[in-house]
């Protein structure tokens, strides 16, 4: 087991057992959905359907239904595309990059963050598809021989690189997500009572059995996929930025774009994860798994990437002046002081100023504040893309071509519709899928669980019936009472006990006797009532007494690292190593209380 420094804050709060982790995650899936879920789902579905209607109208009528004109030939469509792709960056970053860095806090959020990624990339992919106008020939972007009616696609074009980058990213993220889901689906399958649910989850779990070899392959696949997905995450948004950076438009033609876009994508992605996670942890009672520390870690990422984005904005400004290119300089002066000044300053406030507030620990650990900032960042990042795209294009080289962009209701309908569709997908996900990587969380329970860190949990992670005893122990008032009554009982029973001499008993194995003597000597008058220890019955007590173990102090002296096979063998069924360790800990506790 991996040991973790005690100074690190626990990642799983409270006294969780393996079974409780399963319960906490599976309960919302197995029970009835709350009314709020249906209300939210209905709202999202209505908005989504409206969006689909707008898309159908656009496909039937043409791109002219958008507010585009001769000068601004790219506006909300590509803004929304980049915005959604950016949001789709956090999920794989969390699961891949944080896996490579062995960050355990990823386990609580990676599942839903990846789901968010996949749905966001769906939404992103929609925009280039409908922008093609003739969506039914969308397959022409694939490298098909010339006989299919088009020439080979142009592999020199970043727009085509985008096709490959985004489809690779989407499909790899999807399988990465699904591979993690399989063992968790198996857990739900094995718990399912209703035949239909059982059937569906056993289909989804692909017959997962949890064999040691399967787990060993699982870990390898996860690691390799993480290694592959990490450069993929960086490549996708770099390529998206090439769409602009390789064109000769002042304001776009800059080499800073790839790193600046990637940082911005991670920034906006984490903001969206925060937005969703803060609601989800409350709605699904997952506060013990996604708690303030997780939120704080994500806020630190937001702060770091937000600072990179801010630096990039300022660098751009500086270079536009320093380069001495008047067109470049004009593009930036126009952004800040032209007719779209409000978009520029909205972007600057939301993306540069607001994440800097996260330097204050008080603010970054406040959930309400985090939620507000997350929303602000989402808005700011949408404006960033609009500033880069719309504001740059609206001043053409010839002043006669200067124009403004006014979105039509179709523009707005499609954008709002994708938000609705996104939430339809996400709500369905939270309803039917395990929202937490429950089996992965179990692997960090012993190293990062709160009760394990402060030593109140029993070392074997017990089932729920047995764990309640550990819970009783942490309440000090109860412990004192039981100890007090135990002491009374002891004084009554001691005189009745007869003397046992362990050394002269002929049946004892000499090796066993050696173990017993290593536990320290005692005499029969000091005998404790060993039956007070959990699961220690009269027969076992008798057996222990026979070999000379009479007191709690002896049991407390048991060395868990030593070879206890002889002792467990002697005790038989009741004396498993797990039980011995529990007894040892309980005895230690009792002695501590006695000394007080």
């Amino acid at each position, binding site marked *: 087991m991996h040991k973790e420094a005690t100074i690190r804050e626990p990642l799983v709060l409270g006294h969780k057992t393996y079974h409780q982790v399963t319960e906490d995650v599976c309960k919302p899936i197995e029970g009835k959905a709350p009314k709020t879920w249906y209300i939210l789902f209905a709202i999202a579905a209505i908005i989504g359907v409206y969006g689909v209607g707008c898309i159908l109208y656009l496909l039937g009528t043409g791109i002219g239904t958008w507010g585009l004109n001769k000068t601004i030939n790219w506006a909300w469509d590509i803004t929304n595309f980049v915005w959604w792709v950016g949001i789709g960056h956090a999920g794989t970053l969390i699961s891949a990059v944080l896996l490579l860095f062995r960050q355990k806090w990823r386990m609580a959020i990676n599942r839903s963050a990846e789901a968010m990624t996949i749905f966001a990339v769906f939404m992103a992919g929609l925009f280039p598809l409908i922008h093609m106008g003739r969506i039914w020939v969308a397959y022409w972007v694939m*490298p098909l021989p010339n006989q299919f009616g088009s020439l080979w696609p142009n*592999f*020199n074009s*970043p727009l085509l690189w985008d096709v490959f980058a985004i489809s690779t990213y989407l499909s790899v993220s999807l399988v990465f997500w699904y*591979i993690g889901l399989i063992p968790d689906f*198996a857990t739900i399958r094995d718990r399912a009572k209703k035949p239909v649910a059982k059937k569906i989850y056993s289909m989804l779990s692909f017959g997962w059995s949890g064999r040691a070899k399967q*787990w060993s392959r699982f870990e390898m696949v996860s690691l390799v996929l993480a290694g592959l997905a990490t450069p993929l995450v960086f490549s996708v948004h770099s390529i998206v930025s090439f769409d602009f950076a390789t064109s000769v438009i002042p304001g776009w033609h800059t080499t800073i774009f790839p790193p600046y876009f990637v940082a911005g994508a991670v920034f906006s992605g984490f903001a969206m994860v925060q937005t969703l996670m803060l609601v989800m942890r409350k709605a699904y009672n997952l506060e013990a798994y996604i708690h303030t520390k997780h939120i704080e870690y994500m806020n630190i990422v937001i702060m770091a990437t937000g600072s990179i984005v801010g630096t990039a904005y300022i660098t751009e400004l500086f270079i536009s002046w320093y380069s001495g290119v008047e067109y470049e300089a004009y593009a930036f002066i126009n952004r800040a002081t032209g007719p779209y000044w409000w978009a520029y300053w909205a972007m600057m406030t939301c993306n540069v100023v607001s994440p800097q507030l996260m330097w204050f620990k008080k603010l970054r650990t406040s959930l309400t504040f985090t939620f507000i900032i997350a929303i602000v960042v989402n808005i700011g990042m949408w404006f960033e893309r609009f500033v880069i795209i719309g504001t740059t294009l609206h001043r053409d080289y010839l002043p006669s071509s200067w124009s403004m962009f006014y979105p039509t209701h179709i523009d707005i309908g499609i954008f709002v519709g994708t938000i609705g569709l996104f939430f339809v997908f996400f709500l369905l996900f939270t309803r039917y899928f395990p929202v937490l990587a429950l089996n992965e969380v179990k692997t960090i329970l012993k190293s990062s669980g709160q009760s394990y860190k402060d030593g109140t949990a029993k070392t074997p992670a*017990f089932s729920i019936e047995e764990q309640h005893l550990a819970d009783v122990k942490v309440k000090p008032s109860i412990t004192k009472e039981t100890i007090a009554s135990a002491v009374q009982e002891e004084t009554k029973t001691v005189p009745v006990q007869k003397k046992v001499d362990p050394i002269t008993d002929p049946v004892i194995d000499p090796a066993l006797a050696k173990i017993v003597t290593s536990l320290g000597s005692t005499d029969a008058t000091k005998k404790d009532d060993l039956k007070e220890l959990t699961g220690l019955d009269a027969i076992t007590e008798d057996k222990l007494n026979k070999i000379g173990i009479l007191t709690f102090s002896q049991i407390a002296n048991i060395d868990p690292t030593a070879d206890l096979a002889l002792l467990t063998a002697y005790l038989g069924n009741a004396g498993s190593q797990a039980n011995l360790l529990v007894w040892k800990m309980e005895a230690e506790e009792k002695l501590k209380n006695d000394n007080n």
Partner: protein
Amino acid sequence: MGSNVVFYAMYNDDDVLKDGAKKLVAKGVKVSEVFSPFPIHGLDPIIGLKETRLGIMAFIYGLTGLALALIGMRYIMITDWPMNIGGKPNFSFLENMLAFVPIIFELTVLFAAHAMVITYFLVNKTIPGMPAQNPDPRTTDDRFVMELRLSENSKFSEKELEEMLMETGIVELDLKHIK
């Protein structure tokens, strides 16, 4: 020995199972399988599982994707239709290769990832519609089951194996007689 006996020893803790497996293996017992709800780190060498070769396969698949992308780009952009951009047709692969790096990278990743995942599903026998084979439904929740087979441990008797298992801190023991 006409019949074979399968022991399913259940534990309620991963570390207890690991210690138990260590002890059993030290005595010369062969552990044929372990079913657990999550990966138990450090168990594989104890029960004699070799490290998976999926990583090597992923590398080979990646190389395949890389080769295919190189050949494809050379054929499409240079041989078949040398695109004329600004009066500079694509006549040399080496000089034009830089523009194809993104595509070559994406195809390498695409092949490595998907082919490895397909291989993973096939070797794991996790395919839609496969029946689950864990002996107890609790092994996907909080129980850990170690499987021993009498046929693989012919130097021990059924009784001996049972006793050895009892010493390792099990919580349940299930015997199955297979004809």
